[in-house]
């Protein structure tokens, strides 16, 4: 930037981050790469025996892996779509109200503050068809279904995710909305722009970075979904609700197929790295 900045000094900005990652992730990453090429159980976890790429072959040809991969992908796409759409709608509809009464923000944010694992445990009670208040409310409206059964189960799990995380998308988009200058909108209005025109040509483009951040974070978080599904269904019935994180966790801890679990995680790392390199290049280009 300036001439006083020597070639190497600028690396000081990223040095702490890089160093931190090297220290914290170096050892786990190396051990896991070794595990993924090894025959290893909990008994031999400190002395794995190298066996080559067998685990990767297993993973890539495993219907259980791909089944959970696609479950995670679909789950994440649907959840993200609704969370961002609802978050955007709420931010725009409620902004005037919330700017005036800031304390009202708190109540919208509340769902975020319950750990998903704990919420999952509570849902076991709330959705119970005999003693669950949510089932009862639905029955008052004449809806007699068991929400944790096929064909409803996936919808229920997605809805739980959406109910909890829409406030996240809302908050990110709302904070973007806060930084759009009133002057610009005023000027556009004076120039005769309609409400829709202002929304479409000023608000949305200005919010685009925030919308993409919300969508990105929510997508990857939902893709990794674990807690509430694991508590509510254990990934079942069968493998119907096994997300990739559940697949990996169960393979690792319960089936003791450590090599396979780690190989699956490594595949995931690589699968996401390539699109991320490209999309990050796009984001940082302008």
């Amino acid at each position, binding site marked *: 930037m300036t001439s006083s900045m020597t070639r190497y000094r600028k690396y000081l900005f990223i040095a702490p981050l890089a160093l931190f990652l090297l220290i914290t992730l170096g050892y786990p990453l190396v051990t896991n790469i070794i595990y993924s090429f090894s025959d290893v*159980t*909990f*008994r031999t*976890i400190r002395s794995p025996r190298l066996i080559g790429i067998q685990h990767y072959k297993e993973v890539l040809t495993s219907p259980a892996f791909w089944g959970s991969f696609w479950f995670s992908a679909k789950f994440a796409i649907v959840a993200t779509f609704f969370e961002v759409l609802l978050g955007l709608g709420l931010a725009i509809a409620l902004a005037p109200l919330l700017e005036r009464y800031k304390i009202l923000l708190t109540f919208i944010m509340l769902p975020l503050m319950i750990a998903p*694992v704990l919420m999952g*445990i509570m849902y*076991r009670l709330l*959705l*119970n*068809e*005999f*003693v669950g208040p949510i089932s009862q409310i639905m029955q008052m409206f004449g809806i007699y*279904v*068991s*929400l*944790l*059964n*096929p064909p409803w*189960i996936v919808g229920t799990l997605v809805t739980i995710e959406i109910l909890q995380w829409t406030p996240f998308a809302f908050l990110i988009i709302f904070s973007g909305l806060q930084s759009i200058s009133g002057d610009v909108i005023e000027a556009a209005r004076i120039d005769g722009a309609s409400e829709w025109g202002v929304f479409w040509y000023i608000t949305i483009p200005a919010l685009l970075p925030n919308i993409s951040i919300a969508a990105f974070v929510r997508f990857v978080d939902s893709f990794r979904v674990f807690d509430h599904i694991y*508590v*509510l*269904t*254990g*990934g*079942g*019935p*069968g*493998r*119907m609700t096994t997300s990739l994180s559940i697949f990996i*966790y*169960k393979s690792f*801890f*319960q*089936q*003791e197929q450590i090599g396979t679990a780690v190989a699956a995680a490594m595949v995931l790392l690589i699968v996401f790295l390539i699109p991320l390199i490209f999309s990050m290049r796009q984001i940082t280009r302008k």
Partner: protein
Amino acid sequence: MKKSMGLFVALLLVTGVLWAGGQSEAEAGREKVTFLFWPGPESEAMQKVLDAYNADQGIKDNVEVEMLLFSRQGFYDKLLADMAAGSTEFDLNLVTTYSLGRYAPYLEPLDSYVTSDPGKTFIPATLNSLALDGKQYGVPTDVSLHFTIYRKDLMHRLLTDASWKSSYTAIAQKYLGKKLSPKDPAQWDWDDYLATTLFFTKSINPESPTTFGTVLQLKNLIFNIMIWQSTMVSNGGNWMDEAGNITINSPEAKRGLEIYQMIIDNKATPPGSLNYEFAESNEAFKAGQVASMLQWNAAYSTLTNPDDSPSVYDKIGVAPLPAGSLGHRTHVHSLGIGMNAASIHKAAAGKFVDYLFSDKAMEIYGRAGGSPPASMVLSSLADIRPEFPTVAEYLERYAYVVNGGTADYAVPVYEVMAEEFSAVWSGDQSIDTALAHTEQRMKESIHK
């Protein structure tokens, strides 16, 4: 802005100070032994044993035992991490029949620490359930087996009311193709259980006072398989034969899955059962919506407690699981106390283990709410724990451990069955496919 930064720093300081005041030094003198358990009635009862020991025998032994609790959610996974890493945070820890093989490499055999004869205190079968290769790895402190829990009022009416009897026979004829008449639950075979279940299902019999005849626990969970497998074992099936050949793909296993399937197909179990486990089944039963269920003995104390179960507490009957061709059978496993091989207080921990093997310790434990498989305790505490004599009787007459049920592959095998069979119960997979898959995957788990 400055103000907010100041606030932030102040908050950090406050939390820092709060931690610093945290842990106090252990008092010098008696050797501290840490005992790892999970929260709930078992550890609350065990605390009474610890208190008694610390106040008396512990002084003579110069040992003080304290309890450490880990969350039951993910307990085994956490324990596995600790033991594989050789944690020394605890000296004694929970062990179970079905996970014994997995944890045995990290456990210290107890034989050299015991001065009395354990066979005198404990029912030998339960001692064996925590032994491997001739070594005792755990003190059995709680025994788990299965009951048929039923509504006494409903069964009584079924056995006496003429019009109920005849509609029962009609339902049995229609759904099972057999001429059956109502029987006392203690005499049930699987067909009687099915017929009674269908009879008490409102969609089949509009006169039924309960909506569902039974409640099955079908969630993808290893404990639910432990209940299910009696449908197979009571008819002569098993995981494998004595020689170790896998026999899961058998007519007996198929029959077992068909028993469940019939209940599910006829909607005789609540629709949410596919994701039920112990707690949910109890809720359905407490709600008075279910006539009988196959359930863990632990449910008995909750269901007979007027505070917990106001509408059914005085109507609870207990019978063995329905009989197959081999008669009644129940899965049994023990929860017990083992010693961490990495412990640095083994001698001191061993003294407490020796105490645990005594009638006295187990009596305190039983009085406080535990279910120790000690013969003397089970027979002498009948006044406060009415189910104890039944537990003792079933243990002696009906209990089994499946072949391979204590091996290091037991948990992975249960996991496979839970996954494959829950897919059957949700209608995603046929019984034959599930059994073929299970056989295949068992081979992979076992011959690794």
